């Protein structure tokens, strides 16, 4: 068995350990109300079990990381699969650090599912080791990517604590306009998370069925000399095509649920065959996510926020507020170092300029400006608590867009590490 194969096994072990750790954290928190037990004792015991399990998961994850590094000869942060698994690992590291300061099992109940989702999301992407192109082969790249991801991981923990704060303090029975609005947006945040789960579920379900479709898009370009060159781009769908690429022809198509052909075509401004595929993926995520959300609503018969809210009773919201702020404050210097300073050093070495307003660079700067605005807001009266919890939640959306969205939507220098 090669090292790379071994590392894949370690990865699967880590994934399951994370899932179990999540369950144990839930037991530690939700089980406090079970009869015939002392709530404090229960939380302490199960909290320890959960923390040991999640630490074993992290150990296994680290094993995956280093054996894959040894096996492939290059640091596994070079494609989307490797980067997302690394981000998941970084979140666990950040969680472990924050947990060791505050010792609140509740934090695990929210950080673990975040890790599980990100790790599962990583598995959607091709997992084979790809050789690096020369521009990426540098020491500073490794330092830049890993440090930036660690900083982002602290923002992720800040996000988890912020969301917990909201679930704790929002009045889910309130009928005022203010309460209704908070309820809606908390529910919307949860729904967005479920959409990502829906995406993962859809991809794995159709991959399991072995679904395939293929389109070809012909594009003619007239260059400066007046010569017309036609290029054709083929694109493989692994999800049944609801939407086909703009101006494309079917190469291969399997009917799905009586759908004999794609329902519509991507609009003209969605250039390139791949944007059609991406739009199709987004549609499927919405369908699968909404189905999942609908099922959960049917099962609980009330909004998900209201389902989670009672679990949070007895938690001190001030602690959550402080944990959220603290994680972000810890992560900010790391992020600055990794995503801006190391990135500039590397860019200077690789491209001879430390800053080029490349979309990925700009978005890293946006993230940094966003969080510096957050830190300054904390200095002002009236911005602690609820508003800053919202800022922490939105901030993580900005982080995710920088990491994934830019690669999906905007092309740039970093796009070769793309999907």
């Amino acid at each position, binding site marked *: 068995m090669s090292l790379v194969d071994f590392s894949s096994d370690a990865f699967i072990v880590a994934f399951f350990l994370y899932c179990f750790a999540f369950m144990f954290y839930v037991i530690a928190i939700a089980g406090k109300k079970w009869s015939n037990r002392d709530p404090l004792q229960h939380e302490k015991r199960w909290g320890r079990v959960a923390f040991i399990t999640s630490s074993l998961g992290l150990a296994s994850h680290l094993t995956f990381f280093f054996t894959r590094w040894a096996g492939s000869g290059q640091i596994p942060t070079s494609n989307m699969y490797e980067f997302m698994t690394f981000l998941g690992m970084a979140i666990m590291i950040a969680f472990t650090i924050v947990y060791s*300061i*505050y010792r609140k099992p509740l934090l695990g109940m929210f950080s673990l599912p975040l890790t599980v989702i990100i790790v599962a999301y990583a598995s959607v992407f*091709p997992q*084979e*080791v*790809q*050789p690096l*192109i*020369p*521009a990426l*082969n*540098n020491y500073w790249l490794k330092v830049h990517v890993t440090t930036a991801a660690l900083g982002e991981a602290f923002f992720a923990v800040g996000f988890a604590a912020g969301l917990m704060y909201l679930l704790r303090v929002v009045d889910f029975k309130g009928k005022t306009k203010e309460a209704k609005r908070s309820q809606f947006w908390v529910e919307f945040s949860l729904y967005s998370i479920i959409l990502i789960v829906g995406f993962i579920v859809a991809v794995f379900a159709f991959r399991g069925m072995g679904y395939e479709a293929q389109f070809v898009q012909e594009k003619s370009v007239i260059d400066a*000399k007046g010569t017309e060159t036609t290029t054709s781009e083929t694109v493989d769908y692994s999800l049944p095509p609801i939407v086909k690429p703009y101006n494309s022809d079917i190469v291969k198509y399997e009917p799905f649920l009586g759908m004999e052909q794609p329902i519509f075509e991507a609009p003209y*401004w969605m*250039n390139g065959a791949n944007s059609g595929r991406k739009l199709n993926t987004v549609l499927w995520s919405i369908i699968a996510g909404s189905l999942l959300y609908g099922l959960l609503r049917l099962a609980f018969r009330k909004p998900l926020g209201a389902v989670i809210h009672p679990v949070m009773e007895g938690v*001190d919201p*001030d*602690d959550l*507020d*402080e944990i959220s*702020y*603290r994680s972000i*404050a*810890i992560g*900010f*210097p790391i992020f*600055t*170092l990794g995503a*801006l*300073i190391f990135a*500039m050093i590397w860019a*200077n*070495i*690789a*491209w*001879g*300029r*430390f*800053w*080029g*307003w490349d979309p990925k660079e*700009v*978005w890293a*700067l*946006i993230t940094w*400006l*966003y969080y*510096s*605005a957050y830190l*300054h*807001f*904390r*200095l*002002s*009266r009236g911005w*602690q*608590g609820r508003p800053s919890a919202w800022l922490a939640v939105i901030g993580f959306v900005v982080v995710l867009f920088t990491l994934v969205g*830019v690669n999906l939507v*905007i*092309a740039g220098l970093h796009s070769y590490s793309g999907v």
Partner: protein
Amino acid sequence: MLVVENTKCECGHQNSVGTVLCESCGKPLENNELSDLPLEMRYDGVARRSQKSNPNLIDKIWNFFSSVKIAIYLIVFTFLTAMLGTIYPQENTFVNNFDPSVYYEETYGLPGKLYYLFGLSHTYETWWFIGLLVMIGTSLVICSLDRVLPLYRALSKQQIRKHLQFIHRQKTVYKHTIDGDAEQWTEKFGAQLKRKGYRIHREGSALLAEKNRFSRWGPYINHIGLILFLLAILARSIPDWQMDSYITIPDGDTVQIADTNYFVKNEKFTVEYYKDEELPAKLKGTARAKLFETKAVLYECVSSCNDQTQKPVLKEVKRHNIIVNEPLKYKGLKLYQFDFDTTPRLNAVHPILVNKETGEKYGPFDLPMKDSALHHKLGPYTLDLYANYMEFAIGDNGEPTTLSRDPVAPAFIFTVKGPGLDPKGEPYMYFPMQKDKVKFSQDAINHGIADKIEIRVDGMENVDFSEASTYLNVRMDKALPYVWIGAVFSMIGLLMGSYWQHRRIWLRIDDGQLSLGAHTNKNWYGMRSEVAGALQKIGITVDPKLLDNGGNNA
């Protein structure tokens, strides 16, 4: 009219206007003395410069930029506008000559046209974006100066015995009844705090314990770094401080770097690809470059540099094999490997002239594609260059023309004089490449003369071509060292401010009644457990959470 505010504290200290807490004893100076809410401890309650009464114009500008609220607005505006610039590719991402006024509309339709018209196609060079950066810089300078000086004064002359209201209205408060000697208790408690790294100042039964004051300077050091960084970036617009251009050099050629005195020679360009077995299944059969390298020589021109009529005199200054990440560096000038082109390019041929009737051969002579000699003498024949095309084509009007300046399909027209030819000379068309000779039917164009003479190349050794061209990126950035210095300052400041917290504990014992207040600029959780821990050590058990006096976590 001006209302004269009484800013003298009951302890006798004269405070300046805008002071929240007496600079000496810490007594709150607000009017509602009955309030028991936690105090606003920012900048230790000292007056900032911006809180001057009766401001003039400069004060008003100062006040505007000294506001944190304005600073936040500036940050938010900056990142919102930065977002706009990522919607479509920016103009500078296009290396080749392209026309932005057409490109955006053609590619993206109406939104693209508007994008271009609003200047968003070069967002980061617009006056308003640079203006925002300058305003952030101004705000950084003024915000910092406005606060750091008063804060420094306040922290360097702290009174140990604070007003009771000051202690009771801290965010972390503990009250207790002490039995026994007050001074002894204070000493014992002070010893515990000392073990946790506090510096202890005592005055009878009053105590001030302080640690990590340096972390208060973190944000200001960070801001100094950011100011340096911004200045360095603005300095790049000084002429000659920054250069960023691209050059293409075929194998063996020497090319001048525009606007400089430097010439670069590409002695040999090599590219190595990943072998099939190194590639995963999906990428097999594709050419994925593993390593590309330019053997480059940098020359400096020493004389007749700008004289078009003379050949410049070059002096070798540096020799380096350029690969990605390993540029050629010379006095701040850097040549980076950017890309390459493996289309072979014809540089020169060494053809011979054959008299078809006698079979006599003359030559070979040297015929470079570019800048060929105008006159060649071969035995009894003379060749005068009449015209020379790089990429020969017949234009719309039927006249010969050239499509580009690269020798893709070179062609020469000579006026040939010699035995058996018209004494005034006869035109002869010569295509060095076999494919063009056939494509444009050289013999048919030349008709009559084609039976008498022929210009041809004998063997590949007489063909000189470049296998590849290398694309180099020429860069120069004199602001760079300042950028790094700024980044280092900024980082040190951030670390100081984020990972250490300035903590202070005040206590006084009045008639056996202990009043303890504690303040930190971050991490109240840690502050409370530290106080609770020290109390625990001298026999008082208290839940850290109970020390919380409410109020906000700043």
